[in-house]
């Protein structure tokens, strides 16, 4: 578990503890994902990638690329 300065980023079954204060875009890049291929949800709301991550935020990343 993270401390009160960290936030949680989830994508499929993966989960990362990240520092608050950075933008969502920065966090997405930091965990090795392509910002264009995911959308971010916080508290059931779509949030733009320039949003600053607050302590204890829980951010869900949703993949937007499908094949077939």
């Amino acid at each position, binding site marked *: 578990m993270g401390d009160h300065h960290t936030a949680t980023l989830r994508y499929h079954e993966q989960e990362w503890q990240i520092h608050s204060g950075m933008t969502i875009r920065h966090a997405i890049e930091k965990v090795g994902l392509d910002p264009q291929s995911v959308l971010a949800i916080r508290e059931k709301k779509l949030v*733009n990638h320039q949003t600053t991550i607050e302590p204890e935020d829980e951010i869900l990343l949703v993949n*937007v690329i499908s*094949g*077939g």
Partner: protein
Amino acid sequence: MRCQLCGEVAAISMPQHRLKLCEEHYVAWVERRVARTIESYEMFAPDDRLLVAVSGGKDSLALWDILLRLGYQADGLYIHLGIEHEGYSDISQSYATAYAATRPEATLQIVNVAQRYGRSIPELAHGRGRRACSSCGMIKRYIMNRTAREGGYAAIVTGHNLDDEAAQLLQNNLFWVRGYLQRQAPVLPEAAGGGLVRKAKPLCLLYERESAAYTLVRGIAYVQRECPYAQGATSIFHKGILNDLERRSPGAKLQYYQGFVRARQEGFIVAEGEAAEFEVCARCGQPTTANAVCAFCRMLEAEGGL
């Protein structure tokens, strides 16, 4: 970052359109964009009955929702493919039926391939010695057309988005497959004396990201798991290439696709050989370019399904 229309916090930024919008204005923007696409490509008329091919995924559910909100008479068609891996087809169907339950003005028809034709799509593909995806496309097109004809629908509409279309275009471009290029269009008119129902792709100018965002903002639950047969698909690889391009040059995908559509309309893409002549399949009565029996019926006959 603020919504450019109302000053509230923006939910999405779209550099390709130089636009940042809040949730409320985003939904309105998507609906206007789709309405304009339908109008500009003369896809169908306001009072036409439409059959929406619904997979349970984000694009088809977004499309169905947008059409209903725009006032179209749009029913859904879910084709249960019989993909059992982790219950994929059952789960996908549950999302389609869950959405349909929220829209009493529309109906959802379900065609279960295994129940109707005796074999699931993976079994039929295996019998033909082909990859599931190639059989799947042919079988879905057959069922969609037959259902639309029998139900008297004016058009079949599918949820292909801009990324789907641009990736398909890249694939066709790489090898200059003129026949495929000639048939790739936002709308394909009715053909074979009405035997082939008109097909339209109202989301063809909507980025995949925009379609997903619409579905999330509208609170529509959809199957997020990928079809197990789509893993490693060439289309995903091509989408990645196009996203690299888009990152360097926002709007590139849109320009690429719209430029192609204009070129096609101006006659730059001409199919090789003569136009296909349609006959009527002796087994099912659907149009076919093959002699006497269509590819679908030949496949079933080979499987002992007829």
